[in-house]
């Protein structure tokens, strides 16, 4: 059709017979939109009897585009509707120019839409494509196609049912993903996790569709792998194994607050470096976990990760032998020294020379105390404080509490076969205001107690339950009941008493041991015995 673009008046006269027999309708419109000429097919399409003296193009077509063509001198192809018989037609408007390039009018080629469809179906694979799409819609494939204007063009049968089953809020998320994919013109893959129930998470892949650089739409798939129940179970099992084995990965660090995001980014950055690193943060903020994550992210990941209490090591009689042992078993790996007390400057020197002289080990320090330079040898202080990551205390990232609670709850549900799906908003709000001196570890303990108190029918933990539990906490020293064997009761008391002392001394072991009148070593022994987290400060 493009070839007829520059028809001049002379040619038109000469080939009148030819135009009448064209398989498409042909109209010539002058500069004032008056119809000058129509061939037979055009007459049929517009249902005219032959008298065209009074007809203008606007009388034949709704929203004719002649004005645009006259202005731009460019052809336009579009779908139109005829005014008289409301027929759908495909029209090609083309400027009608003299040999000098002066505009004389517009040539319009018209074809009924049905005929156009027939041609398309004969010349292209459109029928096949439509057939396949129909089959896909009815199959197990889960997909959705969106057009540029964000309207949904096609979706598989149970796309929305599937999503709504997972979350009522999935709609917004899915629309947003399509939008981002189209805007960025990149494929995006994202996982939706409902915080309440861990097992219900899905992955959606959104891919923009482009043709010749022009954005046409976006297709979204539900990732079947992720939907697969057993796959999810496996992922969860692996998560549990990671927790038991303490081989954490970056995804195991929960939280969206800026502080934790910064820590995460730092971890990624420092993982590739070989220099000593210091992780700071209060007790229970997850310093050990982060050290493990850094090891996993580093090139040393296939070598051992050794955890070592440096304060205990420093107090041992043969420090250099112990260090030698660490070096041997951790060769090519990472060693995590945690220091819960200030150590003697002489020992610091020893450690410094140890760290300086080994290339086969990467050293990460963990420290829960404030770093005051006077407690440290200058050189040691300089070494450890050069690269550091600070983990925020839980009270500094209250917004993460509900995320953390969700993850911990899912874990506890599995462990104790309970079915608590939710913690009341009120409770979360209350917790956000709490101090949490023991941080995440304390949050986990609190949740564990609540879960253990709950019966099989409890699905939601409410403020009342919390208060009940709180009052128990205050009475917990007298929890021993008469049907407990004496030894168990004594152990229970001892555990509670040590816990209380630890809390009173902000988990400083030296002070706690002193107040209890026992040695630090003995305290550690008892903490291990009662499975009190050493806190990996």
């Amino acid at each position, binding site marked *: 059709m493009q070839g007829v673009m520059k028809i001049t008046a002379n040619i038109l006269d000469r080939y009148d017979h030819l135009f009448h027999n064209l398989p498409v309708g042909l109209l010539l419109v002058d500069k004032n939109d008056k119809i000058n000429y129509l061939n037979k097919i055009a007459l049929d399409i517009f249902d005219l009897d032959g008298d065209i003296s009074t007809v203008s193009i606007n009388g034949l077509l709704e929203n004719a585009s002649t004005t645009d063509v006259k202005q731009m001198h460019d052809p336009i192809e579009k779908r139109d509707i005829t005014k008289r018989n409301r027929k759908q037609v495909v029209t090609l408007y083309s400027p009608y120019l003299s040999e000098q390039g002066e505009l004389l009018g517009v040539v319009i080629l018209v074809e009924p839409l049905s005929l156009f469809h027939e041609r398309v179906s004969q010349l292209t694979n459109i029928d096949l494509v439509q057939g396949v799409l129909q089959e896909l819609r009815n199959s197990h494939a889960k997909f959705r196609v969106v057009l540029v204007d964000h309207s949904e063009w096609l979706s598989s049968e149970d796309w929305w049912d599937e999503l709504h089953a997972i979350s009522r809020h999935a709609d917004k998320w899915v629309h947003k993903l399509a939008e981002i994919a189209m805007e960025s013109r990149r494929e995006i893959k994202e996982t939706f996790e409902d915080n309440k129930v861990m097992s219900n998470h899905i992955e959606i892949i959104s891919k923009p569709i482009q043709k010749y650089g022009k954005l046409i739409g976006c297709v979204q798939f539900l990732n079947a792998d992720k939907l697969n129940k057993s796959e999810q179970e496996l992922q969860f099992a*692996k*998560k549990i*194994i*990671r927790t038991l*084995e*303490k*081989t954490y990965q970056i995804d195991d660090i929960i939280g969206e607050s800026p502080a934790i995001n910064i820590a995460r980014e730092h971890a990624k950055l420092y993982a590739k470096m070989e220099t000593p690193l210091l992780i700071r943060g209060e007790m229970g903020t997850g310093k050990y976990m982060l050290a493990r994550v850094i090891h996993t992210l580093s090139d040393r*990941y*296939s*070598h*051992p*990760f*050794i955890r070592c209490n440096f304060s205990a090591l420093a107090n041992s009689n043969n420090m250099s032998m112990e260090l030698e042992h660490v070096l*041997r*078993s*951790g*060769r*090519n*790996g990472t060693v995590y020294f945690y220091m819960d007390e200030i150590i003697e400057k002489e020992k610091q020197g020893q450690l410094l020379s140890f760290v300086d002289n080994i290339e086969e080990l990467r050293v990460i320090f963990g420290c829960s105390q404030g770093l005051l330079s006077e407690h440290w040898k200058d050189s040691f202080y300089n070494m450890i404080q050069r690269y550091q990551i600070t983990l925020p205390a839980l009270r500094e990232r209250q917004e993460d509490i509900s995320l953390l609670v969700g993850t911990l709850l899912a874990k506890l549900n599995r462990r104790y076969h309970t079915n608590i799906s939710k913690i009341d908003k009120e409770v979360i709000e209350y917790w956000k205001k709490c101090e949490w001196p023991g941080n995440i570890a304390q949050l986990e303990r609190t949740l564990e107690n609540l879960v253990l108190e709950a019966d099989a029918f409890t699905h939601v933990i409410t403020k009342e339950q919390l208060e009940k539990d709180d009052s128990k906490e205050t009475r917990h020293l007298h929890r021993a009941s008469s049907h407990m064997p004496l030894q168990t009761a004594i152990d229970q008391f001892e555990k509670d008493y040590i816990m209380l002392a630890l809390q009173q001394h902000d988990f400083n072991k030296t002070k706690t041991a002193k107040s209890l009148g026992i040695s630090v070593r003995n305290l550690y022994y008892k903490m291990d015995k009662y499975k009190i987290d050493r806190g990996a400060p």
Partner: protein
Amino acid sequence: MTKKIYRILVINPLVESTRIALFENDECLYEQLVVLTDVCVAKGIIAQRDERKRNIMDSIQSIGIDISTIDAVCGSGGLLRPIEGGTYQVNEQMVKDLNDSINGTHVSNLGALLAFDIANEWNVNAYIVDPVVVDEMLDIAKKTGIPSIERKSIFHALNQKSVGRSLASQLHATYEDLCLVIAHMGGGITVGVHQYGQVIDVNNGFDGDGPFSFERAGSIPNKDLIQLSFDSGMSKEALQHQLINKSGIKAYLDIERSADLKILLRSQPEKVKEVFDILAYQVAKEIGKMSTVVSGNVNAIALTGDLAGYDYLNQKIIEQVSWIADTYVFPGENVMLALARGTLRVLQGIEKVKQYN
């Protein structure tokens, strides 16, 4: 202070995959088949070393095991120089011999190599336990009628010894104090006589010595074998394949896989029992033969391997050997557990580790 619980990674390379298992003492935490890519399978066996190693380490990490908690790595032993039974630490010499395939190429050669590579990364020791080349045979047992030809000791050392130990503990005795005759009945059949912990005589099932088995021919009269090798027109390799992979039960019952035997036993029990009768006769005779090695002083007999899972066969054998000693049945074979136990004995200090020279 000795640790109470040891973690041992066990590696058993197979043709197209590697079976790995993680043990806490002798309890299996998990077992996994790490499958190789076709590209890797197409490579030579030694060339697969790096990819197999990487696959194993990746799979352990993906499960989330803390590798610093692993105390030892144990591989299946390969075709080394003939050695005494026991648990060996993988050393440079062993690695060199396996790399050079001094005693033949077999996928099991990778066991020690992989264990060595991985243990090196984790700063722990690598071991192998009772490889097939265990040779504790008496000199006299090696003699044949042709002075220049000697019998070789190639047998299911790992399973036989592991069953020997289990049997000893069942009898409240130590393996090293007993005389046992153990018949391993699997793809090949080997019957060994274990005298005070040493396998002093055993038939070489692989080379056609002793009873026939699921797929092997066993002893064939010399004259007929010579006749067959000249008349059949087969090449040396084809004839060997015929004798090792296409004879025995397979030939009698015209089946391919061991699973077919189970099906056939259900559908045509009479046909299968007829073959079992012949097999039982041959195994019993071999047990009798081996019993004479220790002058009949046999404390117990054990039947093991996959074929020991068939009660009818066991019963038939027991009927004929019951006059020698009591017979115990240990169906199947657990390579992974046997390897883990061998390593554990060394880690716990029950047994001394041996050095390969």
